[in-house]
């Protein structure tokens, strides 16, 4: 579904991502874990061309390395950015409308579907997104990304700052989504992420330190020590 070849990101002289390769099969959940500053967000932003990068990105058989961000999203690759970034000055409904900007025909149907998938948002349709709680904003950010009916969804730390109960809800929904789309999940909570993922990559200082089936990573001593707290 998605393939990265020798992906590199530099900010000035700092190398944030140092030539990584990844391969993500259709209808799987793949997780990218790593400590703060490892280069996870930079990797996702490079995939959608939000930051300058070198290397090749193949999505759904097409080379998207040089495509502008909006075109990549139109191709079916959606990103729920770090820190949610809902449009705080727009209502919940309007945020969903923005997600379906190029999907007018299916807007009504998808919107109904999203309110079913995220019942917490129902009843807050006209509320400004900036006044939602953190958990509600995260759900809105995911729902908004799904409004374009992507083939693949990338989530950058969806559980950041959420109460454990809400994290559970978000992860349930992610597992649910796997039936229809491919998912690349970035998480601080490596244990939870590996639990629902099929495959995992461990990023250290901008390079892939380790990769493998999730069960294997969960059993790996080094991963346990560094990312799973013992």
């Amino acid at each position: 579904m998605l393939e990265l070849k020798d992906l590199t990101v530099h900010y000035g002289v700092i190398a944030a991502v140092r030539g990584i390769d990844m391969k993500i099969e259709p209808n799987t959940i793949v997780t990218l874990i790593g400590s703060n500053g490892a280069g996870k967000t930079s990797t996702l932003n490079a995939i959608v061309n939000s930051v300058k990068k070198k290397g090749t990105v193949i999505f759904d058989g097409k080379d998207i390395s040089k495509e502008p961000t909006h075109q990549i999203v139109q191709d079916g690759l959606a990103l729920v950015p770090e820190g949610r970034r809902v449009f705080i000055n727009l209502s919940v409904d309007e945020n969903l409308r923005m997600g379906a900007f190029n999907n007018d025909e299916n807007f009504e149907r998808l919107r109904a579907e999203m309110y079913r998938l995220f019942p917490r948002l129902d009843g807050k349709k006209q509320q400004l997104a900036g006044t939602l709680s953190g958990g509600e904003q995260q759900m809105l950010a995911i729902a908004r990304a799904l409004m374009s009916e992507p083939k693949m969804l990338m989530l950058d730390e969806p559980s950041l700052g959420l109460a454990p109960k809400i994290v559970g809800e978000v992860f349930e929904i992610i597992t649910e989504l796997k039936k229809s789309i491919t998912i690349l999940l970035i998480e601080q909570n490596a244990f939870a992420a590996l639990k629902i993922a099929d495959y995992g990559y461990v990023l250290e200082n901008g390079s892939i330190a380790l990769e493998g089936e999730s069960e294997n990573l969960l059993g790996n001593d080094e991963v346990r020590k560094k990312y799973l707290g013992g």
Partner: protein
Amino acid sequence: MDLTTFLQQLINGASLGSMYALIAIGYTMVYGVLRLINFAHGDIMMVGAFFTFMATAAGLPFTLAVLLGILGSVIVGVLTDKIAYKPLREAPKISLLITAIGISFFLENLFNVIFGGVPKAFSAPDYLTKIFHLGDVYLPITVIIIPIVTVAILSGVLWVLYRTKYGMAIRALAFDIPTVKLMGIDADRIITLVFALGSALAAVGGIFYAVSYPSIDPLMGVIVGLKAFAAAVLGGIGSVTGAVIGGFILGFTEIFVVALFPELGGYKDAFAFFFLILVLLFRPTGIMGEDLERSRF
């Protein structure tokens, strides 16, 4: 001041305020999305008036001439963005500002070279030069038409901003450009739309100005543009409703100050800015502005 004079000045104020409001919207919307004070915006208004003037001079019917005037402004406004501002999207805001001032000088001098600096009489069709007398109130038909057309146009703009996906994208863009792109939206197209909309409104303002005074010259956009800019800041830069309110407040005060203190008539242009400074002293973000960093439309 008796009732007749009061009514008379009220209507004149609404008419003048309409022009400021129409032009102020362009300032505020461009500021909202690009954080740029588009100093060339007043000249875009002049461009609209000149295109209309040329079209009527060529013998075209007035309505068609107006449409061509609007189209002329839209093209020049959009090209300004594409050629001069777009390459500077990532550059410091000050470079953008200086470029805008350069564009302003360029347009003023270009039209000066082509048409000369002498004011040209702007001939409006007969149906726009009629004058009614309501008791002692003296009503050129334009002062009635201008506020009505303006209110209609402003309702249309608000409808676009709040009821269409393009308007939502404009409002979203004012807050977060990278995330707008993540919605699969071509942000540059939306910015083009903002320039097109702002320029069209400025053209209408310019044509109203030309019909009311009725003469035009290449520098006509300077002082009107500055005042419309003052109106936008007064209302809270970045807020469309604020720009409209600011425009009308400025129109009314200007007219009433002159009516109440005729001896101050010579200072009427200065008064707009005096008023602006006064308001900003008490409310630095303007009337409707909440936060200078994050304008909300």
